[in-house]
């Protein structure tokens, strides 16, 4: 029956059914295979991505660890060679290698240090190949040829195997550069070929770059600080040097070079040589280091200069250990001279006051004891002598009082309009007897129609007296020329200019520097045989002239060639203001002219 039914179904239909079933089965199988392949590929992709992520993670962990180690071990010491050591020492955990080498520069001896850490037992030929590659790299970077003879090598780690036939399979170099300067080179080498590429070494170059950037920045900061410090040291008015514990010169400033007359960039030997016989620098440094307290200040004389030597320890901030010694050279020549002048001045004042006092006392004693025996006209003579001597003393005391007032800013001048020509004429008359007692020709030239001036009559007499008496005092024979005229700028009167020129002993430039100072006339005064008085005259004259709004100065071609003193007196108030305004309108530089006297030191 079944057969009969099957027989009844047409063959064509059966074929179609079979075909459909076969196709369905094949498609299902194909889709299953494709699905499997797709899933497999997806899995493989994920696996590859995961591997990459793992590698990246490993690189990041390594990078962080190495940078952390560099940070911890180096701190702020800026030791680039130590950084190179750390990086080269850490490479073993990152990649396969046979030998890790590093070349570092020894700046002191211009040598290259080659350290070679052998992991796989390789031959010396292999090591030499590395060395040559590194020397080539360094020469290329620095654009300077380097040779084997400049390399000091140190090979450690595994024992070298001279039987090894391995040659350099692959390598890479890691330059370490600080502020554009190569400080070292790391080389990683393997006997295997094609081991290192951009991908597996990138992390090292990143680390190297970061570390080098950090050190470069720190070095910049340090250099900026050093530069500031150096400028401060160079601008010191004292000489200064510093040596380290090993007695190496760390710094020396220009001032010290000038003081000791050494070359501009001296060695320690130059300095020791310049101080020879005056200061044992090495002993001073050693004593300072050994001593708990500061050493007493020493005083030496070098090249006619009196120098005080102060030594001081330099301590490390963190350890408080002595790292060097600073030696300060303080020039006290001027202070010493001033001190001597002070002492001379005091002695002179005591003498100047005691002599007349003794004379007065002796005369008074004579009169008292011999009153009945002395004739009336003799008593009159004695009293005149007492009067004259006490007048000299009074003038001396007045000078001292004037100086005291000037130094405490309590010196006043009471100015009013007046005829300065009259003052000059009157004073000249007073001095004529003194002039005629010497072989001096006195000429006076007062400008006709001299405008009135604004001055303190008493004080200006004091100034004129001082300058004229000095001219007479310091001129044995010859001439004295007095000139009084209007000083003009661009045709406008600005003040009255008085000049007193003599043909006397003159002033040499060295002496002239301090002529208007408090003790400036001491030396000059000693040269005048007839010198009497405080020697404060020019100092007081300067104070009076300046307090009156004028200027005072002098010119002298040199010792033995005469001197001319000048001073100015402001024009009478109304006249002065009118002409000043007129002149300023004509020329701006006038204000400068009025306010600036020619340079004279005090």
């Amino acid at each position, binding site marked *: 029956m079944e057969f009969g039914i099957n027989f009844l179904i047409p063959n064509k239909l059966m074929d179609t059914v079979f075909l459909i079933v076969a196709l369905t089965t094949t498609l299902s199988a194909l889709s299953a295979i494709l699905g499997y392949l797709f899933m497999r590929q997806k899995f493989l992709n994920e696996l590859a991505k995961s591997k990459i992520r793992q590698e990246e993670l490993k690189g990041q962990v390594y990078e962080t660890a190495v940078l952390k180690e560099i940070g911890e071990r180096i701190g702020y010491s800026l030791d680039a060679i130590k950084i190179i050591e750390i990086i080269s020492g850490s490479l073993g955990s990152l990649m396969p290698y046979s030998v890790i080498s590093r070349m570092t520069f020894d700046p002191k001896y211009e040598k290259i240090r080659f350290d070679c850490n052998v992991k796989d037992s390789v031959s010396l030929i292999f090591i030499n190949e590395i060395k040559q590659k590194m020397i080539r790299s360094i020469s290329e970077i620095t654009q300077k040829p380097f040779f084997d003879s400049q390399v000091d090598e140190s090979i450690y780690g595994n024992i070298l195997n001279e039987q090894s036939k391995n040659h350099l399979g*692959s390598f*890479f*170099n890691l*330059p370490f550069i600080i502020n554009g300067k190569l400080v070292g080179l790391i080389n990683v080498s393997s006997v295997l070929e094609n081991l*290192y590429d*951009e991908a597996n070494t990138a992390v090292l*170059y990143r680390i190297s770059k970061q570390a080098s950037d950090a050190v470069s920045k720190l070095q910049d900061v340090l250099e900026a600080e050093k530069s500031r410090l150096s400028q401060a040291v160079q601008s010191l008015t004292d000489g200064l040097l510093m040596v380290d514990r090993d007695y190496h010169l760390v710094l020396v400033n220009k001032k010290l070079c000038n003081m000791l007359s050494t070359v501009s960039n001296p060695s320690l030997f130059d300095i020791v040589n310049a101080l020879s016989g005056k200061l044992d620098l090495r002993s001073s440094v050693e004593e300072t280091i050994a001593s708990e307290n500061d050493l007493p200040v020493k005083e030496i004389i070098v090249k006619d200069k009196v120098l005080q030597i102060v030594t001081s320890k330099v301590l490390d901030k963190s350890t408080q250990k002595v790292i060097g010694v600073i030696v300060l050279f303080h020039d006290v020549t001027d202070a010493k001279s001033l001190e001597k002048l002070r002492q001379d001045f005091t002695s002179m004042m005591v003498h100047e006051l005691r002599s007349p006092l003794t004379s007065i006392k002796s005369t008074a004693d004579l009169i008292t004891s011999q009153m009945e025996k002395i004739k009336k006209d003799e008593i009159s003579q004695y009293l005149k002598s007492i009067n004259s001597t006490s007048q000299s003393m009074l003038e001396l005391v007045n000078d001292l009082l004037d100086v005291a007032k000037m130094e405490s800013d309590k010196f006043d001048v009471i100015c009013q309009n007046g005829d300065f020509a009259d003052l000059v004429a009157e004073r000249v008359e007073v001095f004529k007897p003194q002039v005629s007692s010497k072989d001096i020709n006195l000429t006076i030239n007062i400008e006709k129609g001299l405008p009135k001036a604004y001055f303190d009559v008493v004080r200006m007499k004091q100034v004129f007296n001082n300058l004229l008496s000095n001219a007479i005092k310091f001129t044995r024979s010859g001439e004295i020329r007095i000139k009084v005229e209007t000083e003009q700028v661009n045709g406008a009167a600005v003040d009255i200019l008085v000049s007193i020129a003599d043909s006397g002993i003159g002033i040499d430039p060295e002496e002239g520097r301090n002529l208007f100072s408090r003790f400036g006339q001491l030396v000059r005064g000693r040269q005048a045989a007839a010198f009497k008085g405080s020697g404060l005259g020019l100092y007081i004259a300067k104070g009076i002239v300046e307090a009156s709004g004028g200027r005072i100065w002098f010119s002298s071609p040199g010792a033995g060639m005469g001197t001319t003193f000048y001073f100015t007196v402001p024009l009478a108030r109304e006249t002065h203001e009118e002409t000043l305004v007129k002149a300023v309108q004509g020329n701006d530089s006038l204000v400068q002219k009025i306010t600036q006297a020619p340079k004279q030191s005090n």
Partner: protein
Amino acid sequence: MENNYKSLFSEFIKKQMVILGPGVALSKAQKIRGLTVDNQGQVSTIISDPKLMLKKLTEDFMEFSGHLARESMQMLLSDYPEIAKEISK
């Protein structure tokens, strides 16, 4: 001009091969799109704008050798004044 660029790039890559090592320098150079570099560091084709490629080449190597790459390129450019003139425009 293109040959000049090829020659310049080749010299640059060869210098980097000496400084950094051949494996690293070559893989770095061969990874740059627009350049065809053989295993001796010789550049055979430049597909993109050579001016841009010069910039890219220098910058990519600066990741590894910092200012050395820039200095190296500047030094080489003194031998290629036409290129130096062109890139300065």
